[in-house]
């Protein structure tokens, strides 16, 4: 059964180094997922990255969340991993269950 996670603590993951992304997760009043993206390749890949972030958040059953991504040219699997880690930290999960990710 999928439980919807709504109790979040502010958390972050990643760095602002090139080829990395810094992801911040905040609880949000409204329902849904709010994504703020700042990317050095936004013009070309902005939509694709936003879709990736949304898909990652949804697959973890998280709602009422604001996700801020500062992308410094990271590849998809890096962005995905940073979003996942930030959410797990926000949920207070210490050791990620990699099998579910």
């Amino acid at each position, binding site marked *: 059964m999928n439980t919807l996670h709504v109790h979040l603590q502010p958390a972050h993951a*990643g760095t602002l180094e090139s*080829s990395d992304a810094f992801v911040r997760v905040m609880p949000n009043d409204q329902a849904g997922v709010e994504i703020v993206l700042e990317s050095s*390749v936004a013009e070309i890949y902005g939509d694709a990255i936003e879709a990736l972030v949304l898909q990652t958040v949804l697959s973890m059953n998280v709602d009422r969340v604001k996700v801020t991504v500062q992308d410094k040219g990271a590849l998809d699997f890096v962005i995905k991993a940073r979003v996942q880690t930030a959410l797990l930290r926000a949920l207070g999960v210490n050791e990620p269950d990699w099998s579910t990710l």
Partner: protein
Amino acid sequence: MIDTHATLESILNAKEKRAQRQQELLAHFGEVSLICLSLTIPGSLKLSHSSVVIFDIALREIRLLLEREALTLLAFESTLAISGAEAIFTCQARSEELKRLTCQIEEEHPLGRFMDIDVLDAQGKILSREAFGYPKRRCLICDNEAKICARAHVHSYEELHRHIDASVQKHAWKQSIALWCKRAMKREVELTPKPGLVDQANSGAHCDMDISTFYASIEAIVPWTQRFLEEAYMYANEEPQAAFSRLRRIGIACENAMFEATRGVNTHKGMIFCLALLCGAIGRLKARNESLTCQALQTEIHVLCAHVVEEDLMRHTPNSAGMRFFKETGSLGIRGVAQSGFALVFETSLPFFRECYDRFGEENALKQTLLLLMGTVDDSTLWSRGGLEGLAFTKNEAQKILHVGLKHQDLDDALKRFDQTMIAKNLSPGGSADLLALTWLLSRIVES
């Protein structure tokens, strides 16, 4: 450990740990800037032989930069892990200045594209290249913007790694030549016995230095030999006279490094002059894809210092032994030898060394060649200590021993007696020692 693929988790964790460490350093030291070096190696194979070489070169470049700009280094730490190589320099310097200087390394060094040199200000903010007028970084292989090329998977990891290996390989000759320069200086100082010179048995006619002073000096000089090679290669299109001025500027910095290592003793000033010219010529020839033959090297050195005699000896007021020597005796000294493209070495001492080498082996060949040089060169080091009389005595004595054609123990005995006389007369043939090292070096690196 080397050539092991890193997991994504370990790579990402390493980045977070690095960011954390940066915060700790800034909290501890306060108003400082950080230089954080990592490498732009794509994929999971972060630690390869190529990346270790690039990392080592980058560390050296940054240290040289700090030294050159007289910036204070408060702390240094570095890691070589499967997840990659990284280093943090904590510096007392303005972050803008550090960024400007490190961008130059990224842009100008032949392997700079594989270096990622971040600069953080005291607040932990990473300064951007674009703020200093530098373009976004290009792809390792093509001319596209790096981040876009990486996202689009234009190049396979295999192709990227092949390119990195090939670039390192293309750079290898500089490190190799620098190592030969080091070996040449060691070979010369370790040759024993030598008349009047520092060797393994004694300090010759020098009371302010011994063989350990020479070892320290050699260590200090070697990084600069690479700088001669690199800059000559990079600016190979420059007019020879401008190239000579460039080499001389580096040479002065090299001299300062030597004096610092020896606490003010002149061990290798003449040698540095010879190496600057030789490495300068090598860099220019390599850039033109020409072979390092004797003739090409001699011509290039001649072209490089076509004006040195006029410039140094005719115009300036004398501030070195070589200049005073010219003023008082009219002899051109080492500058004359250099301006001829080291004709004395290429046409006389090198063929002689090779002949002796084939007949009697290296040890004997080096000793005979030293005597040949001592019997020929108008050495300002000899003159400054013993005047014209000392110079004439040394030349005669060296020629006498050489003409007897001694070998093995007999030659060593003669050299030891010569050494005692030279010490008693306070004479040292430093110029001949430099040319001996140059002869040996050329015997190793010239292509036929």
